[in-house]
């Protein structure tokens, strides 16, 4: 559970989620056991002669309990802030990183486009787009930061990669930037998470994460195709 070392959104998410899940599970178990105990122990049929308890408050206990709640909230919040700073720090880190790949994301009803802008003057832009209803391929290298700039051509969309546990809204007349590192190779489904009209459900993409050398070959080939 080292929150500091993690450099990708998925491991940051996983380590924080584990803590929140444990806390939620323990709290639920405690409350459920207390309620179960009360329901059995204090039902009127069990001891019909017994009068109900007369104590109407326990302000000292409740005060201490309130402090306990505040401590739990503060601990969770501290962990969240810590993890959030790491997530938010990915973007400026990628912007400074000369190895980072730039990809422009364009959302439109109801497909995604991915553009690889030139890295040297004179290079053509590579555009990935698939016919509507089929997922556009986002080809990216494994382990190398990818700096995304996102825009929309019409309404609100939301770039969501469930495997990386990350999403970001894009909307017209605005450019949003975020960075991701893909920790392993493979095919990962991405979707538009924000309802964007009639065929919202079809607005998929696929992240194809490949080894760096393979990615470089792929991009060079696509640039050559774009030039011709």
């Amino acid at each position, binding site marked *: 559970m080292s929150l500091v070392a993690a450099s990708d*959104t998925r491991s940051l*998410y996983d380590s*924080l*989620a584990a803590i*929140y899940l444990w806390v*939620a599970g323990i*709290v*639920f178990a405690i*409350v*459920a056991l*207390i*309620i179960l105990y*009360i*329901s059995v122990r*204090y039902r*009127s*049929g069990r001891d019909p002669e017994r*009068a*109900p*308890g*007369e104590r*109407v*408050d*326990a*302000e000292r206990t*409740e005060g201490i*309990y*309130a402090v306990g*709640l505040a401590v*739990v*909230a503060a601990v*969770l*919040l501290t962990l*969240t*802030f810590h*993890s*959030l700073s790491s*997530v938010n720090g990915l973007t400026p880190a990628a912007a400074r990183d000369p190895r980072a790949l730039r990809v422009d994301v364009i959302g439109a009803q109801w497909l995604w486009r991915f553009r690889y802008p030139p890295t040297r003057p004179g290079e053509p832009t590579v555009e990935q787009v698939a016919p509507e209803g089929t997922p556009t391929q986002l080809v990216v290298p494994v382990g190398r930061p990818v700096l995304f700039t996102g825009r929309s051509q*019409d*309404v*609100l969309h939301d770039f*969501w990669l*469930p*495997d990386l*546990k990350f*999403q*970001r*809204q894009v*909307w017209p*007349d605005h450019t*949003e930037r*975020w960075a991701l590192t893909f920790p392993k190779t493979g095919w990962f*489904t991405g*979707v538009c*998470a924000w*309802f964007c009209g*009639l*065929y*919202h*459900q079809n607005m998929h993409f696929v992240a194809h994460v490949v080894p760096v050398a393979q990615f470089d070959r792929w991009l060079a080939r696509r640039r050559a195709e774009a030039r011709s």
Partner: protein
Amino acid sequence: MSATLPAPAPLVDSLISVDHKSIARRLLAFSLLFFLGGGVMALLMRTELAEPGLQVVSTETYNALFTMHGSTMIYLVITPLALALGLYMVPLQVGAKSVAWPRVALAGLWLFVLGGIIMQSGWLTVGGPGRATWIGVAPLSELQRTPGSGQDFWIVGVLLATLGEWLIGMCVLTTALRRRAPGMTLMRMPPFTWTMIGTTLMMIFAFPVLIVLMALLFYDRRHCCLFDGAQGPLTYQELFWFYGHPVVYVMFFPFVGAVAEVFSAFSGRRLFGYTFFVASTALLFAALSSSVWGHHMFTSGRVNTKYFALTSHGIILAAGLEYFDLIGTLWRGRLRMNVALLFGIVFLLQFLIGGLSGIWVASPTLDFNANNSYVVVGHFHYTLFAGSVFGAFAGIFYWFPKWTGAFLREGLGKLQLAIMFVGTNMTFAPMFPLGERGMTRRIANYSDHGWETLNTIATIGSYLIALGVLVFLINLYVSLRRRRVAGPDPWEGPSLEWATTSPPPPHNFDVLPPVRSFAPMMDAREAAS
């Protein structure tokens, strides 16, 4: 001797009566009617989602269904249901002979009904009803993106219904503040009345924002550009959630209050930790409600995520104290396990799942995945359905004898609870793993990523819920046809509503017992014994 006017015909009376009990009954009846409609929409959606592919409805119909299901349940069912409980019970609980501004409350009722009818009449238009989600977010809800008059009907419907609800809320608040019986200080108001004060305080500032936003959206569809540009979609979200988060608590507090009354009555104890309950639930919770809206916008990257995470985690304090007091009321009680109490206990457990998953989405790192996924759908259905609706049934079983003079059947009630308990958890629990695995909300169709089994379970659960609701309708019918007469105080309740006949006379009380605490009826019984 007296020259009273002849009583109007029953139908006319039901249109114009300004008796708060009559207005509340009509409000309750309309919200029940809309509840059945919204429930049918939910069943259609669950049927479509039972397996991958499109089988039952078209994508376009599905988009209309989820928009109208959410809009119906929030604007036309749970909010008015909460207000109906308040409008009926608050004047009785504070020992008032009527609600403040009864004609305003009546106007509120009919504005609400008109709004509901206008919103639903979108189904009759060529393009279908509103289909830009229950938040009607711009720019999607603009004319060129969502053409057709159905969306306009939705906007006007939301505006009028919300205006009506706001008016009723203000009448309830004024009644609690200005019409209390002699001896009833603020800190002697019953817990339910306090939760209604919290509710209506939130309504004061939150509801007008939505009313104005709907007017702006209506204008925007005819002219242009209010929500364009880089700031437009953000502005819409900010304004909407400034209403949209407080309304979540508007749909929750009154049911917490109802459960507090139920716990008190059926354990034979006064509410435990009254001062803390008032301070945390009615005041701290309500105050926080206006400072957490930005957590709905974490994924925009354009709100101060840390600030809104801080305020949202603050809810842990308010909700934790509320649980302490509710459980403390049962502790060492003498529990009569009636249906009302059982609904209250199940409410407490199920809402806890909604609350704990709420802390989950209050953390931006976790929300970056959960937002707009089925995790969120599971979360808010655990709060609003597994929580609020179960709390509402606790209140309905508890107060039904007061409203009608007759008991609801206990056996049918327990059957309903058992079926709904199983159905609810079957429906909403699978949504957490589905969302975690990447299922987005608001989709009619999905390709099978191993999601089918969980979706099928959820669909079966939703039919069980419908069966539970059917059992309740049968219970209503049987209980009203073959009445088992309840006296003025069948449960030995704590507060003043039990000091009068069931149902109460038009002027509510012939005599009032002295009010020396927040549980005057318990005082009276103790003095008599």
